[in-house]
């Protein structure tokens, strides 16, 4: 079941994933060239910042795109009702889709970090230290991307008819996300905040699917 769903969702997700990988790679390569052309006194700093921004933007856009696509492609084909007719019903379908989202997050994390590490490696001006500096913001980003994903999913979910339930998650997610990114001791607080928020969003997603009409 999971394999079948994963295979199907991969086709939906593959496009944006590849686009994000391509975009990140392009941004990293560009940053490396910039750094080589204009080596600043602290050359690594430029690379750091651009890498961090690229990573952030690519991750967030990917999360939003995937979450929206997973919902919207079902609706566009009218297949929500078809999937709903399977024995597991909408609960199973939702769980499987969200699980596929999680798998995509893992895949993206490994690929994106590898690209950044490669970029660092290519930039001859950098030393061992930047790794530490880079990992920090990258991990923060990865930790709060789930919130963006679930927020996007809730926004695009078929039974969520009210504008409140559509816009609120997307808007509410952004301040929370900034909060996580810039907290001190983030490595303790951020995962907790992410888990708590994600749990809440997932709860709302399932509640909406339970109480609203799928027609």
């Amino acid at each position, binding site marked *: 079941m999971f394999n079948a769903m994963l295979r199907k969702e991969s086709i939906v997700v593959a496009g944006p994933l590849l686009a994000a990988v391509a975009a990140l790679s392009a941004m990293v390569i560009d940053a490396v060239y910039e750094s080589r052309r204009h080596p600043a006194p602290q050359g690594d700093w430029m690379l750091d910042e651009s890498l961090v921004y690229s990573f952030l933007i690519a991750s967030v856009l990917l999360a939003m795109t995937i979450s929206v696509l997973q919902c919207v492609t079902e609706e566009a*084909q009218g297949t929500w*009702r078809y999937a709903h007719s*399977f024995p597991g019903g909408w609960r199973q379908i939702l769980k499987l889709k969200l699980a596929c989202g999680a798998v995509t997050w893992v895949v993206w994390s490994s690929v994106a970090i590898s690209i950044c590490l490669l970029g660092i490696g290519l930039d001859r001006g950098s030393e061992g230290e930047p790794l530490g500096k880079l990992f920090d913001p990258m991990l923060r980003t990865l930790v709060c991307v789930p919130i963006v994903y679930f927020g996007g999913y809730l926004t695009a979910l078929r039974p969520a008819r009210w504008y409140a339930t559509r816009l609120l998650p997307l808007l509410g997610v952004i301040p929370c996300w900034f909060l996580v990114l810039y907290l001190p001791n983030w490595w303790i607080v951020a995962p907790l905040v992410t888990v708590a928020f994600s749990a809440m969003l997932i709860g709302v997603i399932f509640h909406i699917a339970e109480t609203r009409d799928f027609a």
Partner: protein
Amino acid sequence: MAESVVDQDATRQASGHQREVVPPIVTDRLTKYYGGTRVVNGLNLTIKEGSVYALLGRNGAGKSTTIKMLMGLVHPDFGSATVLGEAAHQMSPETRAQISWVGEGHPLYKWMTIDGAIRFAKPFYPVWHDDLVEQVIDHFKLPRKRRLYRLSNGQRAQVSLALAVASDPKLLILDDPTIGLDTVVRRDFLESMIQIIQQKGRTIVFSSHILSDVDRVADHIGIMLDGVLRVDAPTERFRDALRKVVVELSGPLPKPPECPGLASWHQNGNRLELVFVDFGETHQSYVDSLLPSSQDILELNLEDAFVEYTRGSRGVMPAFAKEVARV
């Protein structure tokens, strides 16, 4: 207005033999509002096991909404729908595994091939019969490796039906499965349905607008009018219940007098057509009281019976004929 045609025997049977078999579908005062309108209004429907039940009605009568409530897609505002013994929107996976649904337009993942669609659906079901799917695919020579968006509507409909049967369901719910299909392809689809019907014990519920198809296939029909179930009877019983009496009058009537059981009337010059439900002696005297110069009593086929029953009075035809215009 239209009288209800209800098969008394069936309702008596269903309530008397409750200890025996639970009917696969039972609704109790099922009601749904959309905005201020009651789209489904106090629906009391019981569908017996093994029957082929056609749910009929004009567009907007509430058939689709009813079917969605039976599948648990939509929550009723009042009343209940019980499917295979469980509340429709809280059915357990074991129960849902025994129900197959084909929706309007046969929604499928069109980018999949036939093989891909089978491979996708199969793991979700505890029971899956590859041979049942094979039968349909081989019989209609469907191209297994072709993507669904490249198949014709008719071929996709067959794939939908094949997938629906593979899980060997006890209950099949088909929401207007032949919509948009041409005559030949519809016949193919009906053939498949007949094959399914021949294997006993399955209950089939379907909605359709093609009354001649319904006449071939359905043994029970239910007609919904404005959200209410007006007719719930064996197909034959409904057909039998309606009679068209064509009378020639000496002069046109402005409007025929009221009569219980008069479903509709239509006048064209001196010719008056009256459609009665359960034509009997009172109706015969009524007709005679109009002093017709001639009268003919005709049976109706299912399509005409349905049209006359659901259309209501057309009154006087808009003038083609000069005589009517003068009046």
